[in-house]
């Protein structure tokens, strides 16, 4: 970090690791997260830096992280997906319905066969909405904001229709104990492992594969991407399918964890996911973004809220602080980019 090298004025300057790190999109926001953790640990040494607290922080952000991972792809293409929270509920509802139907009423005693069928149903439920969004955005050229605002309401309505507006609570105990509250490797919650592995695969997909490069290209300049021979329409459709798929997976995780379909909950998941992605340095104009940034962006509001809860600061301050951090993060990022472009 302290490595500073004097650049000789060559035509192409090779920047040192230190310079690249300090100018990295995610570096400063990572420092903010670290600073928050240190401050709260100092303020509440007995309560904040505890295994219990970090375990809870990780569990409570796991579902949102999976949504935000999908959102990262969409925002890098210059799009937006307001429907993720509703698709999550829809997928959970389809999954619970399927598991209950296969068990002849109540799925509480159901085994792994039924649970896997439930997982498939959840993922399919997510993919259906991903397809609807992707088709309307990529093929019919309706703006993503409008399409997903529509599916935000429609998916929740469809989920409510499936069970007459009430939640399903008959979730297999095996699923609850395994994915919902189970742990592996000496205490790491399975829900967190699942979210982490999904994030790692997605990071690999975004940063090392052709799919990822196309995603950046489409977001950076769709016309240029088209002329370079990238099937922009097909690619956009795939990205929204992926986001729907991840929302479906998140729905299954949520079902396992809360053991209810939670129609009334998750109302602000979409905005929280967008805030996390943007805080993590992904540009709302597309073409720029990292998965690591999204992970940090998911944790900053969570750490702030948890820290304020633990240090007994009124909840109203949390809302203000989270909003301020969001705007400040984007502002700093803009400033930094502008000054870099000037030099």
């Amino acid at each position, binding site marked *: 970090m302290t490595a500073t090298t004097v650049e000789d004025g060559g035509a192409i300057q090779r920047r040192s690791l230190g310079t690249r790190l300090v100018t990295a999109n995610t570096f400063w926001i990572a420092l903010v997260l670290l600073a928050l953790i240190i401050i709260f640990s100092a303020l509440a040494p007995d309560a904040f830096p505890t295994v219990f607290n970090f375990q809870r922080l990780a569990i409570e952000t796991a579902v949102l992280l999976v949504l935000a991972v999908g959102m990262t792809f969409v925002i890098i293409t210059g799009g937006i997906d307001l429907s993720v929270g509703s698709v999550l509920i829809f997928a959970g509802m389809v999954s619970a319905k399927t598991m209950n139907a296969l068990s002849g009423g109540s799925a509480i005693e159901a085994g792994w066969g039924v649970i896997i069928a439930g997982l498939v149903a959840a993922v399919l439920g997510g993919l259906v909405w991903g397809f609807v969004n992707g088709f309307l955005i990529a093929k019919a050229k309706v703006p993503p904001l409008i399409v997903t605002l529509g599916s935000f309401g429609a998916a929740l309505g469809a989920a409510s229709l499936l069970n007459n507006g009430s939640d399903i*609570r008959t979730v297999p105990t095996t699923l609850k104990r395994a994915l919902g509250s189970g742990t592996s490797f*000496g*205490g790491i919650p399975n829900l967190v492992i*699942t979210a982490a592995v999904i994030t790692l695969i997605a990071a690999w997909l975004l940063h090392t594969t052709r799919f990822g490069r196309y995603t950046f290209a489409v977001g950076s300049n769709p016309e240029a991407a088209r002329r370079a021979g990238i099937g922009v329409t097909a690619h956009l459709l795939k990205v929204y399918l992926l986001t729907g798929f991840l929302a479906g997976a998140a729905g299954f995780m949520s079902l396992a964890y809360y053991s*209810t379909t939670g129609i*009334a909950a998750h109302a602000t998941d979409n905005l929280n996911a967008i805030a996390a992605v943007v805080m993590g340095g992904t540009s709302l104009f597309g073409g720029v973004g990292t998965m690591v940034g999204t992970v940090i962006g998911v944790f900053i509001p969570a750490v702030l*809220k*948890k820290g304020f809860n633990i240090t007994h600061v009124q909840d109203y301050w949390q809302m203000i602080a989270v909003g301020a951090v969001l705007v400040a993060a984007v502002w700093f990022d803009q400033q930094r980019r502008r000054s870099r472009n000037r030099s």
Partner: protein
Amino acid sequence: MWFVGALAAVLVLGACGTGQVGEDGSDSGAPDQNNKRLALVPGVQNEPFYISMQCGAEAEAKAQGYTVDTQAPQKFDATLQEPIVTGLGADKPAALLVAPTDDVAMTEPLLQVKNLGVKIVEVDTSLQDRSVAVSTITSNNEEGGRLAAKTLAELAGSKSGSVLVLDTIAGTSTTNARAKGFLDELKKYPNLKPAGEAQFTQNEPDQAASKVTAALASTPDLIGIFATNLNTGEGAATGLRNANKTGTVSLVGFDASPSEVDGLRAGDFQALIAQDPATIGKEGVKQAVAALKGEKVTRDIEAPLVAITKDNMAENEKFFYKTEC
């Protein structure tokens, strides 16, 4: 799409561990007698019902030499309440008074806090799993619903017609029970028939208002509405006002928030079924302290309910909810 298959495998593999969250490091030994901190997590911010409960709890705690730290979620939503419960729990108060926002989803986080050695007392709402809390103080909501039906029958007199029930959210044990008690009791009055099942308003006034205007259009003989809480009541009053049916259709509300009391005075409401949140908060603290001191704890306590009409407002003033202590 091999990627899809890979992720599906991850979800299942992630579920193959053997441990359970919070099963290690749990010390539910004897409570620390020097810990005089209590925590209260109501169902939602800024609701006079919960503020009155907080006032009752704080007064009683002060009398007993304890402090109460209150934090409430922005919405009546388990996903928002959970981080608050576990956040306050991490600080290990002696006892946690909580109004669970979902009778199933809040079980796991509350169990985690309990495993840290914190006594759990349920106030207002409760979990299905009765092993988590040491005591539950709640209004008998089913009885409240019955009282509402009786009151509405008195208001209707000999007139006959349909009655609409506005519930909040599926899975909210309190309002679901109120609706059930109301519909059960209503069967005793042959001149009153329910206008279909209880309708869910998602605890949003605008949805309640639109359900009322829709019911007025579809059910011309509507003569009464039972709104199971503050938000549905205010929405129903708005709906009736918009349709110019205030007073023609009798509106029985639940709770006695300042706006509802004003509504009763102005004629928007014909009756209110009031709970006694201050007593719920007070009893919650009493039971928590008893549990901490190892004294006898009453597992279930019912708080009183009262039907307030315009005629008996004056003598029931102590049941009106507060917006600040």
